[in-house]
């Protein structure tokens, strides 16, 4: 209770409506733009962040970063809201509700819908659905790189740019050929937009089921080699270096990298000055392939002091049934050492953002044999809780966790000239006088991940039944209430 004692939120209002008044007293403020965190108070009035007060000395007494935290609204660079085409798995409306529950105020959705978002008409449908939802969560969209994502011809890139996409991706698959990638980087670069690539050498992953290694070997699952990701990353970087000679505005963003070697390749390319950025996901940070065998310990708990992976068959980590299809994801969950490399990449800035790759699926697509289950984890509501678990374990400073979900992705998008200067790439700080765009969560309170508590239609997460730290109390997007915790003890 004490953690919430400072909330005066009775007048926050109805979801979707402008927040008339919201006062958060004696909380922990995190402003990654100012590079500042500490005790403070905020007041939102008529949708505007009216005041941000940093408390000093006695006033700050008893406030620490273990209670209520106020941070800028989170920015999701990679989500699947499934509309149009797969509305049984998710809609723009349910995706926005889930995003708000996760603390997000902006979400960029991937174009692998049915039909694919390869021309402006589909973007209009997505926008219309977002408007109709009444959610204040801002929905951005990527266009497809290739027509129908078929990897043959370019999509309607220029028209899509005019209509407002923030980049191009054939996510779900790698841009199919290096030749197409080169054209796409040049053409998108000319338009001031990036190619966001899903790095997978499909030839090496044909039939693959789980990360190639000890766990897949014991479970008899077809190996998904790290080389498949490293190959694609190397190809993309080489093609980018080449394209830059003709089009200096070419930009490459590599999404959901999962292996130590691929992250090293990006680290080297960035050190050489290439305009390549990348992100990692909460599930590749926190879960490992041993979860498929039935382990449920966090990635850092699976690493022994000597840096070597523990053995779940030896150390009693196998607590759940094996072959849980909620763990089938592309790229696959990797080893504890790879997860540690993902964390190191977040800490050293190689991975500028943490994105959820929110991939909701129906029970019909997941309640099948492991090797036949569709890939993806529903993750937009659990990302903050997963990162806060890292914070609780002392693996990630709170301010870094917040930055990876706010200024990190915003900074990457600000590097795309057509997006820079738009609202999408705005700095995400706690700025007085601006429209309130923030999340309030309570690190002292946890919440149970259940089919009921998740607002996404996709219940496909291995965290079902588990509790996560950092209950989101409010999400305010663009001055409007996006989410308010419904629990009865709400102040």
């Amino acid at each position, binding site marked *: 209770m004490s953690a919430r004692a400072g909330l005066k939120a009775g007048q926050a209002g109805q979801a979707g409506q402008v927040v008339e008044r919201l006062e958060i007293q004696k909380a922990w403020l995190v402003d990654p733009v100012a590079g500042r965190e500490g005790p403070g108070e905020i007041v939102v009035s008529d949708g505007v962040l009216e005041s941000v007060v940093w408390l000093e000395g006695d006033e700050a007494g008893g406030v620490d970063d273990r209670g209520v935290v106020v941070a800028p609204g989170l920015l999701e660079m990679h989500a699947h809201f499934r509309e149009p085409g797969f509305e049984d798995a998710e809609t723009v409306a349910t995706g926005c509700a889930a995003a708000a529950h996760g603390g997000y105020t902006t979400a960029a959705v991937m174009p692998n819908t049915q039909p694919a978002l390869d021309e402006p008409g589909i973007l209009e449908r997505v926008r219309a659905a977002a408007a109709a939802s009444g959610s204040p969560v801002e929905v951005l969209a990527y266009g497809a790189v290739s027509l129908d994502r078929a990897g043959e011809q370019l999509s309607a890139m220029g028209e899509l740019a005019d209509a407002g996409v923030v980049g191009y991706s054939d996510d779900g698959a790698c841009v199919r050929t290096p030749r197409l990638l080169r054209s796409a980087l040049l053409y998108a670069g000319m338009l001031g937009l990036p190619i966001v690539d899903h790095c997978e050498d499909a030839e090496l992953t044909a039939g693959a089921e789980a990360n190639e290694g000890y766990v897949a070997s014991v479970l008899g699952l077809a190996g998904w080699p790290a080389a498949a990701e490293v190959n694609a990353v190397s190809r993309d970087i080489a093609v980018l270096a080449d394209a830059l000679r003709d089009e200096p505005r070419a930009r490459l963003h590599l999404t959901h990298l999962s292996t130590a070697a691929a992250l090293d390749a990006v680290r080297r390319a960035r050190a050489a000055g290439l305009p390549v950025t990348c992100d990692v996901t909460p599930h590749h940070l926190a879960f490992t392939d041993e979860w498929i065998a039935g382990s449920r310990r966090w990635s850092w708990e699976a690493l022994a002091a000597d840096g070597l992976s523990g053995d779940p068959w030896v150390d009693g980590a196998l607590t759940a049934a094996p*072959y849980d299809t909620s763990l089938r994801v592309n790229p696959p969950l990797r080893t504890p050492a790879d997860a540690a490399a993902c964390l190191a990449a977040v800490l050293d800035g190689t991975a500028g953002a943490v994105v959820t790759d929110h991939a909701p699926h129906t029970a019909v697509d997941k309640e*099948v*044999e492991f090797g036949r289950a569709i890939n993806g984890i529903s993750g937009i509501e659990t990302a903050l809780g997963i990162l806060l678990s890292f914070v609780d374990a002392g693996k990630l400073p709170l301010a870094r966790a917040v930055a990876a979900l706010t200024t990190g992705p915003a900074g990457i998008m600000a590097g795309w000239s057509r997006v820079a200067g738009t609202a999408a790439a705005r700095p995400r700080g706690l700025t007085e006088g601006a429209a309130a765009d923030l999340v309030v969560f309570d690190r002292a309170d946890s919440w149970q991940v259940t089919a009921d508590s998740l607002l996404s239609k996709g219940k496909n997460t291995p965290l079902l039944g588990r509790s996560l730290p950092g209950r989101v109390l409010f999400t305010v997007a663009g001055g409007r209430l996006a989410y308010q915790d419904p629990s009865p003890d709400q102040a």
Partner: protein
Amino acid sequence: MSAQAGAGAAQAARKDAAPTQDVAWHHRHVLDVDVLTWPEIELIMRTAEEMGGILARPIRKVPALNGRRVTTLFYEASTRTRVSFETAARNLSADVVSIATATSSVTKGESLVDTIRTLEALGAEILIMRHSVSGAPYLAAQVFSGHVLNGGDGWHAHPTQALLDLYTMRQHVPGGDLRGRKVVIVGDVLHSRVARSNIWSLTAAGADLWLCGPATLLRGLDRWAAAWEGGKVPGHGRFHVTSDVAAAIRDADVVMALRIQRERMQSGLLPSLREYAARFGINAERVSRARPEAIVMHPGPMNEGVEIAPDVAASGRSVVTEQVSNGVAIRMALLYLLAGSHDGTVPGAAR
């Protein structure tokens, strides 16, 4: 040396175990041998011996599972395993329903979960399942209220095969004790559920296990072997992975060949069957490097002339047909144990 260390670990684990007489069966399903303790494996062996006694009689039938409903659900073509299970079930007087997916509504797109719920509604109590996807029986076990017996899943597990292999080896090794005995499995280990289940049971038995084959067909197994280096998994010894067939077979007590499938050439894992036979085939010359009393095994069906030479398959060392008949005894034992909580004594089996 290290192999003995591994056997020692298995032995040490065994010492702590309760005397086998006191072991009661408590598993609801048999999905793999990995969760079986050594005393439980010995209980299965003992129960299978009693079943072997029944099989030696003129009338091979006891009423132990009278009226119990056993369903075989095979998503993959298999004659010998399915017939072996059905024979075992009928020997115990169970009612057997046999479903082959080619003739079922599975071809109309019914999901595994729906199929299993349907079979349960039709009264199935024990489900024997064969499936091409690793882990499928674990999904079945989650939705089925009865017992699931894994008849082979993907590359993952084939517990009844591993248990009948162990049973057959014990009949041939002096004293029935595999500790320190060298067992070599040669062939397509990567795609073999037989090999994977045998890793668990033979390292539990304390055997000096060697897996051998071309590097393309051992992928990932080296990482498993490395993880078990030093026999650190409780109750299991270490094992060896090698492409050196001469070293693997030298002084072996048991040589087991695995089936090589033609599609391995199409997928670029092997140059040719001819080359495989020349470099890895179990022929008379290679077997002569094993111990004089060594036995030759094969889970079947055999490609004679590829992974095993016809003269070896037909020789006195070959115990392939014993494996088949022992398979019925093992499957009777497991059905019997699954059908109730038993100590391995089969009523009506006393001689």
